[in-house]
């Protein structure tokens, strides 16, 4: 009797300790969730705070005279003259005109450094679009150099970053600002141009097109092949060692590191079949092999969810096995398959490691127009920019990441929406 009372006391004594342990345990769980969510928040705020500035860029207003002698062009329709024209002279003259007290070579070089090195070509495009301007004078907003852009934005934000600026340049910017001749504009270059060594001229259009071409090829190849494989494995495959072997292979391929697929692409497509490097064809083939397991696995799940009664009913009406699949099972499982395909494509869109292996990391200025043009993709562009030493590229990289993430968010939202909207519960 006394012993059981003792036990009861023991339990009572330990109860508060055990309850405290229980509470602690719960807090560990909450902490873990919090850490995960905090990581999401920190990541997004970090990227957005670094990258939001890239959507606007600094322009300087100058009075440009399209002086025929200075450019050295007589006939605007002659391509050879246009190519040899001294277009930079226009912007340089405009700068000297604006700050006419600058003399000495060093100061002049600093002065010319205010605007982008590609400003001359922008003026050329402007003149070609409107040939009547030749010999005239007009006020033009000209793209500023990336150092000026970085400084001006940081100065507007109240914490100026002037490490790469000379005292003269700071003074000029102050003057321009006082006269309202320097301002931030929407950075359309970011979306209309290809890559460039100059941060202010660099854009993601080339990379986005490269991603698009690569993804189109990936989708065209992997969706039909993946769905066919899933149909075979679910509906027709006999249960034997061979099909087991196929299944083991698919499951393992889904977990093989993506860089290995890059090695495969390099050894087989480039070194054996001699497809040129850096082209979306190879990228598409490699990503196809990489996304196939995902698509096969999700497609099989979608086919599995179609109840057998539907198959039996169709068979009972005299349909052949293929008619059952093509007329009934496939249409019913298509929403699930499409969801899987979109998720697979989102994976392929974010993938960069295998593409590094097959040479899609080249510096490519031209915007690819076809499957056999050298191209890079958005994630690789991000990788390349992240490696660049110029400070202005940090902003660009974050902006490119924001674009990539918004594509991914859109794709995943569509996938979730499709699943909710079209998937039938039996």
């Amino acid at each position, binding site marked *: 009797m006394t012993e059981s009372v003792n036990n009861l006391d023991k339990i009572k004594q330990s109860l508060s300790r*055990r*309850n405290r*342990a*229980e509470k*602690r*345990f*719960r807090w*560990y*769980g909450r*902490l*873990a*969730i919090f*850490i*995960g*969510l905090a990581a*999401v928040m920190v990541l997004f705020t970090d*990227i957005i705070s670094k990258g939001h500035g890239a959507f606007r860029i600094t322009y300087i207003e100058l009075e440009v005279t399209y002086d025929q002698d200075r450019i050295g062009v007589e006939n605007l329709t002659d391509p050879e003259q246009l190519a040899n024209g001294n277009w930079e002279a226009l912007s340089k003259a405009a700068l000297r005109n604006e700050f006419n007290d600058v003399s000495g070579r060093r100061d002049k070089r600093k002065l010319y450094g205010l605007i982008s090195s590609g400003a001359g070509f922008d003026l050329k495009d402007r003149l070609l679009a409107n040939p009547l301007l030749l010999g005239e004078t007009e006020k033009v907003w000209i793209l500023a150099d990336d150092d000026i852009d970085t400084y001006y934005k940081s100065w507007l934000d109240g914490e100026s970053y002037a490490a790469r600026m000379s005292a003269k340049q700071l003074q000029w910017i102050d003057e321009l600002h006082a006269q309202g001749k320097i301002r931030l504009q929407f950075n359309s270059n970011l979306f209309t141009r290809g890559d460039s060594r100059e941060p202010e001229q660099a854009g993601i259009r080339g990379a986005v097109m490269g991603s698009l071409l690569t993804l189109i090829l990936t989708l065209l190849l992997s969706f*039909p*092949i993946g769905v*066919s*494989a899933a*149909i*075979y494995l679910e509906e027709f495959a006999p249960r034997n060692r061979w099909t087991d*072997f*196929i299944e083991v*292979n*698919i499951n*393992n*391929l889904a*977990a*093989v*590191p993506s*860089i*290995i*697929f890059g*090695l*495969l692409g390099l*050894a*087989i497509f480039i070194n054996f*079949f*001699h497809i040129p490097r850096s082209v979306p064809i190879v990228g598409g083939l490699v990503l196809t092999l990489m996304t*196939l*397991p995902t698509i*096969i696995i999700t497609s099989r799940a979608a086919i599995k969810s179609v109840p057998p009664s539907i198959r039996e009913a169709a068979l009972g009406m005299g349909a*052949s096995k293929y008619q059952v699949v093509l007329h009934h099972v496939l249409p019913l499982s298509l929403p699930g398959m499409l969801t899987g395909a979109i998720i697979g494509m*989102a994976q392929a869109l*974010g993938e*960069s*490691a295998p593409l*590094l*292996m097959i040479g899609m990391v080249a510096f490519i200025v031209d915007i690819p127009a076809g499957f056999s043009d050298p191209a890079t993709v958005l*994630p*690789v562009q*991000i*990788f390349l920019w*992240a*490696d660049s030493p110029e400070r202005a590229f940090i902003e660009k990289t974050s902006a490119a*990441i924001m674009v990539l*993430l918004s594509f*991914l968010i859109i794709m995943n939202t569509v996938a979730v929406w499709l699943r909710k909207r079209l998937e039938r519960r039996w």
Partner: protein
Amino acid sequence: MQATNILILILGLGAFAFFLGRGRSLALAKPLGGIRKLHSLPSYYGLHAAMWCSLPPLFLLAMWMMFDDPLINSIVVESVADEIAPTDAASYNLLLNKISNLADGILPRKGESAVLIAAADHMEALRVISRWSLTALMLTLSGLGLLWGWSRISASFRARPVVEKVMQNILLACACLAIFTTVGIVLSVLFESIQFFRSVPIFDFVFGLEWSPQTAIREDQVGSSGSFGAVPLFVGTLLVSAVAMVVAVPVGLMSAIYLAEYASKSVRTYAKPALEILAGIPTVVYGFFAALTVAPFLRDLGASFGLSVSSESALAAGGVMGVMIIPFISSLADDVITAVPQSMRDGSLAMGATHSETVRRVIIPAALPGIVGGVMLAISRAIGETMIVVMAAGMAAKLTANPLESVTTVTVQIVTLLTGDQEFDSPKTLAAFALGLMLFTVTLLLNIFALHIVKKYREQYD
């Protein structure tokens, strides 16, 4: 004609054949009293004709594209062999490239020797012949196929089984692509690795303590002996993965437990997808975050404590990698925890255990095999992760277990060895394939083992 144009033409012919075959079967059926008198539906006769019309030429096209380039190359090199005999594989490739570039007009012809220009012309001529004979052959084959398919159509012809047989084989081929991919991976890394192990003994590679893959270009160069001891890379990879696991396993596991056991339904519906966001973020974004935000932060933090933290520390790369893996572990663990039968929970609670005691003493041990399997899959993922370490971990191969120092990993070295221009047969590039072989073997073993454990565990409670 371009390959794409031929492809479109053949597909167009196939569509034409479909309508022709279907039309003929309908015409045949009319006097007999409707399509009921045919063995198969009219569209099957159409498909049958289309298959005969387009499949053989497509097969020919694939074969042709595989073999015409090497054939032309060897004929051309053979023809100039009297004047300029290539001595080894490298000079052979160089010669071939030059001729091919001359033929394509990429290189200017001015100043090249007459032999080379003649060879380039020869190559160009052969290519034209190849292209036209391919087109002619494909069109002939397509026409013959169409005729054959057309002639076989009759009321008693069993078109459907034939078509379905062909379709079944196409489906089978698609399913077998997974096997071909695996075989392709194994062969591609194995062949190059064997070549590599011819110049560097396998023992030196696996157990060597020094990694500096710079090989000497000149014989007398100093300091570029090229040593390929991969142990520092393995240690670096393990270090980064270990840091990642230290972050990911507790956080992932605890959040899975909380979500599965404690969280209310509303918390679960919002917190779970929010955590899954981490899994959907591309690795290059994590790499950027690790290199530009986490690493400088850790360096400054270390400096304020008087510690010297490398700006490419294993801690930054591993920590961010761990964050990436959190949702992976949490969703796998969530699956296995919810799969533990409710009766086990009820039994433990009825004996007076608190909820956390139930979790720790009953549920976790019951779910342990599944959790271990999940963690192993996560480890294999951490080992094979590339972009984060390429961007945030170092290049220098150091043999250290200190996470504050910079280390390099297997994947980083594969990327650095293979990006940029270098000739393909140097031990430097081949070393990348040997590393790839190690990576593939290790991850494959981990995956097979983990999948086996998870599968077995599932069977236990199903």
